[in-house]
């Protein structure tokens, strides 16, 4: 009998993703599920999905899931985790969710050092609602609400939430990665794994920001979307570890 070398992670349900072709969510879902499997925590993990394209994440993750109002995922997750510290709790949020309407909940969860893992998917637009400007939209980028390009003095500057969270004393691990190539996908998986391990070791707040492609709203092909991240988006949002104090006696 042939040896099985590739299979669906246990933490993913046998369901077909509703995401658009070329969208980064499917990859990030899979990576998160693989990490949950590898850490052996599926039976004690609770996920909190956002409002946005990933609102239906509970159709895919084979773990307990509790919905949150738009932007409030880290407050809801705080309630779950504090009430049941033995559970592993992660949020899965887009840029509008975590860095606009939920900025306060995010910064304060990090600042309290909540033992939570946040997966932050940054594609620079509000995808679900049709491609409006997000807090993370690049200067000059056209969206449905910045049809002549984002002008900072009218629309504000791109918000680097992860840098801000790196300043918060309660954050332990903050990293920015992408999913544009096999190499970057593997790096992302490593970062997600570490972000879960920080929680399992009771160290504090961990977040992985993943630059993700949105071919539909960017009106680019999948390949060109990946190219745009690698050549353009990373200039505003450089990849790498923003903060890591896991080795510093936390």
């Amino acid at each position, binding site marked *: 009998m042939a040896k099985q070398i590739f299979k669906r992670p246990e933490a993913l349900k046998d369901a077909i993703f509703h995401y658009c072709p070329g969208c980064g969510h499917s990859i990030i879902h899979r990576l998160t599920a693989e990490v949950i499997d590898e850490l052996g925590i*599926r*039976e*004690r*993990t*609770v996920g*909190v999905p956002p409002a946005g394209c990933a*609102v239906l994440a*509970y159709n895919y*993750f*084979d*773990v*307990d*899931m*509790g*919905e*949150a*109002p738009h932007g*409030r995922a880290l*407050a*809801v*997750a*705080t*309630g*779950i*985790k*504090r*009430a*049941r510290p033995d*559970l592993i709790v992660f949020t899965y949020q887009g840029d509008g969710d975590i860095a606009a309407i939920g900025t*306060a*909940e995010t*910064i*304060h969860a990090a600042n309290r050092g909540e033992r939570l893992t946040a997966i932050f998917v940054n594609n620079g637009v509000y995808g679900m609602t049709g491609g409006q400007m997000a807090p993370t939209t690049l200067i000059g980028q056209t969206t449905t609400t910045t049809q002549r390009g984002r002008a900072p003095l009218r629309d504000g500057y791109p918000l680097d939430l992860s840098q801000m969270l790196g300043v918060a004393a309660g954050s332990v691990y903050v990293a920015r990665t992408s999913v544009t190539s096999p190499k970057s996908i593997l790096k992302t998986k490593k970062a997600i794994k570490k972000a879960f391990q920080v929680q399992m070791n009771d160290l504090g707040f961990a977040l992985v920001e993943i630059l993700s492609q949105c071919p539909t709203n960017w009106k680019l092909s999948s390949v060109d979307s990946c190219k745009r991240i690698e050549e353009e988006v990373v200039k505003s949002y450089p990849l790498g570890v923003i903060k890591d104090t896991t080795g510093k006696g936390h």
Partner: protein
Amino acid sequence: MAKQLMRGSHVIGEAATRAGCRFYAGYPITPQNEIPEYMSERFADLEDATFIQAESELAAINMVMGASMTGVRAMTSSSSPGISLKLEGISYIAGMELPAVIVNIMRGGPGLGNIAPSQQDYFQATRGGGHGGYRTIVLAPHSGQELVTLTMKAFDLADSYRTPVILLGDGLMGQMMEPVSFPDPIDPSKLPKKDWVLNGTKGRDTRLIASLHLDPVEMEQFNWKLARKYAAISEREAQHESYLLDGARFAVVAFGTAARIAKGAVNRAREAGLEVGLFRPVTLWPFPEKELRALTRTVKHILVFEMNLGQMLEDVKISVGEQASVHFHGRPGGVISTPHEVENVIKKLMYKYELDK
């Protein structure tokens, strides 16, 4: 247990703890700051309890939402402007069918208003308040001892019906000190097990707690389910107090602090020989509609007294229909009426309708 003199806000905190509440999140706002203060200290000695001073009212209600998903009895408290902020979360909690207790120690409004006692949030509390046509059970205490019983009852109702319950007081209820006694505390581990909580999938299928129903038919079915639940609550849970209504020819209808003032007014009018009593709704939703309608068999003239400009008045009118004449006296918040003032209104009306003869 012996009686002790306690401030209303502290009574709420102690009663909640004794009801098995083990999660509290809140944000400072006057006149209810003594609740988070009390909870922070009371929970400090309980290993299984969590107190969080949240960064906002929004965060506080959402933390309560998350905690409730795990099955723990959870509470937040605030005052009028803060409750407005919490309404988003309360709507979700109703839509997720989660139990939660929300205390509103009302103050003057609209906007920032002031910190004086008021009952201007009656509409907000009894009509759901937030979006989506949901309801919350609303309990209106009028004394320190009733703060004990209704706070504890709020947790039982929230669990029984998996619904948010509002304890609706005002600055006076929160600040007034009265002698109270408490029942023995409930051991939270002895409470009925909840078979819907998020606690990991070990040995079972995954669970989902969500208010999203994208399928139109599913959405409608869910709202019919909520409607059946609300009908059951309306049928079973309406509660009121009849005060000196035996043989009364005239009735005052008032709740909470206004009812407390009205009792003084009724006592004075009785001393003057007038046959008047008080009908006091204890639950504002469900409103004790049938019970009030039954009263109109003997009482044909009613005075509604509120610390607003006539909100419960609408429920009274709906309840009695054409069976009684309904009058109103109220002050819109900021200034508290005296029993003497209300007594004068009672007398004027009773003389007018020749009920003194």
